[in-house]
């Protein structure tokens, strides 16, 4: 569904992305993980059209969209959430979601009905008429998700929607994500909460320092020495090996 190949992007002298390729299969939940500063969010920016790459291509459903502006990609069916939540702070929860719904529905009553349905689906139904700025962190994450969902995407990019949530909040939102996939939406997610990644993802890509260092099924990736080193530092894989043998 999504084929990204050879993406590079530098900021000043810093190479944030260095020849990154990844692919997302239709109907899957694909994870993009890696330590802080690996370039995951920059990658999302490139896929969603917020950051232009220096090299490489983004192909979505057999169409090259590398140079297409962000709002046109949204119309194609690519929706994203932001790691640092970006609510329309002056608007109500319902109005926030309706902006997403207006992408496919011109009529205000349809957009509102659609927004209500999405709000109920992510568990914001009770907050519909409240101001978005009154939401808790968990509420804001749900709002990000709801707005993106309201655009009726085919591909949903989730940037750390679980970060900052407590374990019970995470338990509540996991079924929501599974339900979204079940409804036919393909998901690419950046996530640090490994328990969630393991439970949800079909395939995982691992980035570190702007490069792709591993890819595969969750359990295989977890045992990959490169991945362990990237997360825990040089020599960690060997130490774990020893500990395992001891």
């Amino acid at each position, binding site marked *: 569904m999504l084929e990204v190949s050879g993406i590079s992007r530098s900021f000043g002298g810093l190479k944030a992305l260095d020849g990154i390729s990844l692919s997302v299969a239709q109907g899957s939940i694909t994870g993009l993980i890696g330590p802080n500063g690996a370039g995951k969010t920059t990658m999302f920016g490139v896929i969603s059209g917020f950051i232009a790459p220096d090299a490489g291509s983004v192909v979505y459903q057999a169409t090259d969209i590398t140079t297409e502006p962000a709002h046109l990609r949204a119309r194609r069916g690519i929706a994203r959430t932001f790691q640092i939540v*970006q609510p*329309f702070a002056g*608007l109500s929860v319902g*109005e926030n979601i309706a*902006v997403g719904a207006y992408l496919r529905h011109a*009529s*205000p009553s349809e*957009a509102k009905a659609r927004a209500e349905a999405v709000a109920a689906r992510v568990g914001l139904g009770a907050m519909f008429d409240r101001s978005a700025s009154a939401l808790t962190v968990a509420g804001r994450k749900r709002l990000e998700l709801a707005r*993106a969902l309201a*655009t009726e995407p085919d591909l949903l990019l989730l940037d750390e929607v679980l970060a900052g949530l407590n374990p019970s909040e995470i338990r509540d939102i996991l079924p929501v994500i599974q339900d979204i996939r079940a409804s036919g939406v393909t998901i690419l997610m950046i996530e640090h909460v490994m328990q969630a990644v393991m439970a949800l993802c079909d395939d995982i890509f691992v980035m570190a320092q702007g490069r792709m260092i591993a890819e595969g099924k969750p359990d295989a990736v977890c045992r990959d020495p490169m991945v362990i080193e990237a997360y825990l530092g040089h020599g960690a894989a060997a130490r774990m090996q020893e500990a395992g043998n001891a």
Partner: protein
Amino acid sequence: MKRRELLFIFALLAALVLVPLLASNLLINFLVTALIVALAAQGWNILGGLGGQISFGHAAFFGTGAYVTELLQLRFGVNAWLAALVGIGVAAALGWTIGAAVFRARLRGSYFALVTLAFAEVLRILANALEFTGGATGLLLKLQPGAAQFQFESRAVFAWIAIAVVGVVLLLTRHIANSRFGAQLVAVRENEDAARALGVDIIATKLRAITLSAAITASAGVLYVQYFLYLDAQIGYGTWISIEALLAAIIGGVGTVAGPVIGALALHALGELTKGFAGSITGIDLVIFGLLLVAAVAFAPAGIVGAWKRYVGGRRNA
């Protein structure tokens, strides 16, 4: 809530319609001037209130509407109504052009405010210098009362026309606020990145807003010139109308439907009152307006309308 707002709009218009029946010429003069500023402020509010792009240069559109309308009649003998339509159209095109240049260059916030002011100043200097626009002496439109000339013997008739235009724009603003375009415009105001991610074309949305905004403010310029029959660069393109449009919208309630109209009426009433108190000291009314702007930003970000809603809401909850 929504229905109540509509009811309020009609009540306001009905009250205004009655004024010319009972009032003296002086009061009608006051009403027409206030309505012209209200209309200019309604235009400002589409871009500045709903769209969050604060303009310091709406005189550019007011003056263009006024100048084109008057020049077409004076220099080319065009019928007044047709001239008015063309004037509004030219101002809308100017709005689009300025918007296309400024929004593509990604000028926002303070930069947007200053660059709009500079555009208005360029036009003012040109209108003041060129012979075609009457130079510093200005342009006088021939007095020829008659509906076909868009001039009326009775001031009351003119006041009713102004009320009708303000009323139409009130309903239009309400319609926009409840539409997809309005929602997207407000989304752009609140957060451009989030709006883009939801498929909103930022530049196209802002362009629509500035074009419509320019057309509405230009219609205020048209009314001005057809009522007072005189125009010079200071009236058409001077900062006074940019400032009054902004003040009325912000003090009345920025981004609200009725705010600009309420703000314009309130400010002009206050202006007359202070003139009554302070006599012939010029400037006192504007000192108060300036301080009111500071106070509105500090204490009442949604202006009179916002404060009223809070008061009513508070009473209902109590």
